[in-house]
């Protein structure tokens, strides 16, 4: 029972981090109609900059902030130089152009930082574990969950309560009308893209101590993120949140329990390898089932 609870927390932690990345990706798709495969590269940049700052002795909070800001700036450059030209293009062109951006970002990062993973320490104050009635859970992971939920709440308030949020919602459904009302859509796009990049960088920086900071890390999580926003319904923040938690939970619980479930029917080593494979497959199965059942995802946004 405590194991289940611990695994649920792990899934929640993974899900909230996926949400940080998914939020920007789904907004960019909802408002600009762009599929950005290079979103994972922004996450990678956030992790690398935070790792470097932490390695040079910066306090952890400052290092995380540096990673997020660096990713945000990289995102703004990316939008102004490349993404802006893709708004009116077919999805196919967008896939290809942002695929090219991945190649450039990965090679650029490996030129600067090399191919060896960068080590990052969990900040000293969060080294321990917190007793949660019956078992102890790593403090740092609890902070990740809290940070993820806090950002989700902040994003919800930003979108539902502020002027910028109103423009974002309007831009997603009635782009021409918003432009006709005198809103500078180009600037709105850049701002949204920058915020999305910042959040992706934040996720990378926060995860840096518990994952391998290396070239290619962006693509691993990018696909999971796409699964999350497709399951949730493209362009919808609420959908991205639900989708991200679903992906986090299904992936984590699958990894923990599928080998156990398979034990009685298969030899131990087979159960382990097959369970590992099947749990990796589980989230894609989830996506395929959702799409076959609801071809536009669980919470389709707008009418586009």
């Amino acid at each position, binding site marked *: 029972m405590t194991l289940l609870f611990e695994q649920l927390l792990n899934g929640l932690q993974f899900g909230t981090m996926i949400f940080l990345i998914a939020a920007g990706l789904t907004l960019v*798709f909802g408002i600009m109609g762009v*599929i950005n*495969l290079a979103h994972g590269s922004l996450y990678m940049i956030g992790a690398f900059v935070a790792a470097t700052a932490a390695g040079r002795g910066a306090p952890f909070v400052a290092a995380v902030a540096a990673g997020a800001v660096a990713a945000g700036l990289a995102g703004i450059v990316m939008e102004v130089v*490349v993404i802006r*030209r893709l708004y009116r293009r077919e*999805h*196919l*062109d967008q*896939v*290809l*152009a942002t*695929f*090219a*951006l*991945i*190649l*450039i970002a*990965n*090679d*650029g990062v*490996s*030129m600067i930082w090399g191919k060896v993973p960068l080590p990052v320490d969990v900040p000293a104050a969060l080294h321990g574990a917190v007793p949660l009635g019956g078992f102890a859970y790593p403090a740092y992971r609890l902070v990740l969950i809290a940070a993820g939920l806090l950002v989700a709440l902040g994003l919800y308030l930003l979108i539902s309560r502020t002027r910028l949020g109103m423009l974002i919602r309007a831009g997603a459904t009635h782009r021409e009308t918003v432009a006709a009302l005198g809103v500078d859509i180009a600037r709105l796009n850049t701002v949204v893209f920058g915020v999305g990049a910042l959040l992706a960088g934040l996720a990378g920086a926060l995860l840096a101590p518990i994952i391998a900071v290396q070239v290619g890390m962006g*693509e691993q999580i990018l*696909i999971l993120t*796409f*699964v999350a926003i*497709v399951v949730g319904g*493209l362009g919808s923040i609420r959908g991205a949140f639900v989708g991200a938690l679903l992906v986090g939970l299904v992936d984590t619980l699958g990894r923990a329990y599928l080998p156990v479930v398979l034990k009685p029917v298969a030899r131990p*080593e*087979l159960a382990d*390898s*097959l369970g*590992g*494979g*099947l749990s*990796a*497959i589980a989230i*894609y*199965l989830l*996506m*395929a089932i959702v*799409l*076959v059942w609801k*071809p*536009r*995802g669980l919470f389709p946004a707008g009418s586009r």
Partner: protein
Amino acid sequence: MLVALPAVAGALHQPFWVNAATRIVIFALAAVSLDLIVGYGGMVSFGHAAYFAAGAYTVGILAQSGIDSAPLAWLAAVAVSALLALVVGALSLRTSGIFFIMITLAFAQMVFFLLVAVKAWGGNDGLPLPSRAVLPGVDLRDAGVLYYVCLTLLVGFVAFAAQLVESRFGIVLRGARNNERRMLALGFPTFRYKLVAFVVAGAGAGLAGALYAEFARFVSPDMASWSRSGELLVMVILGGMGTLAGALFGTAALVGLESLLSGFTEHWMLPLGAILLVVVLFAKRGLYGWIAGRLDG
């Protein structure tokens, strides 16, 4: 292609060039099959590497269990990948646009992780082939001979594809790409047409995968990875989709650029990415369209 023949014949004593040419021919077969559905059917599959891998693994597994008759193994590879495409296509074609891109990616990822998980097929390490298959009267162990076999199959498939896209079937397929509702209203069951095209494309990729397994004498889950699917799409779009010549051109350009740039520098992905970016942003109809436009005007 006619240009490639004498050049390769002259270079037969240089294994590097024969190998590079064989890679180009094999990937061109996969790219042409993908172009059938992307360019002519408007179905952007982001999981075409799965059928390539299905064909390759079929040959690999058969070779492991001692079946080394080339016609048998290659037919089995085509059948397995066509069957996989039938299942995936039947489910995926319920969606369209970006969702189709994502669901085909999801199925390819399932294949990828399945190949990683099954230890009997080598898991992550892949599966070496004990020897190349035996084709009666032809010595496939010779690199030059293997190249000509691959080239023959490529020419055959391109001829078949060219027939197909100009046939009534191809016209209906293009009609469905341009305006599906109109084709439905005209009484064409577009779903069935698209599914058949999807299966033909999967079979073509499976044949390419089978040839690659023979060529490399090795199969690995990497063949089904999403970046491999992305590369196949790049080949199609780089050359200019919806033209079979474009798919050939794009494959030669990408594989050629990779070989060329990796000879100069370890960091060849950066210039390759930059070139790709320029082509997408400024040459809208791909390299082939750009060159053809130059020649016309």
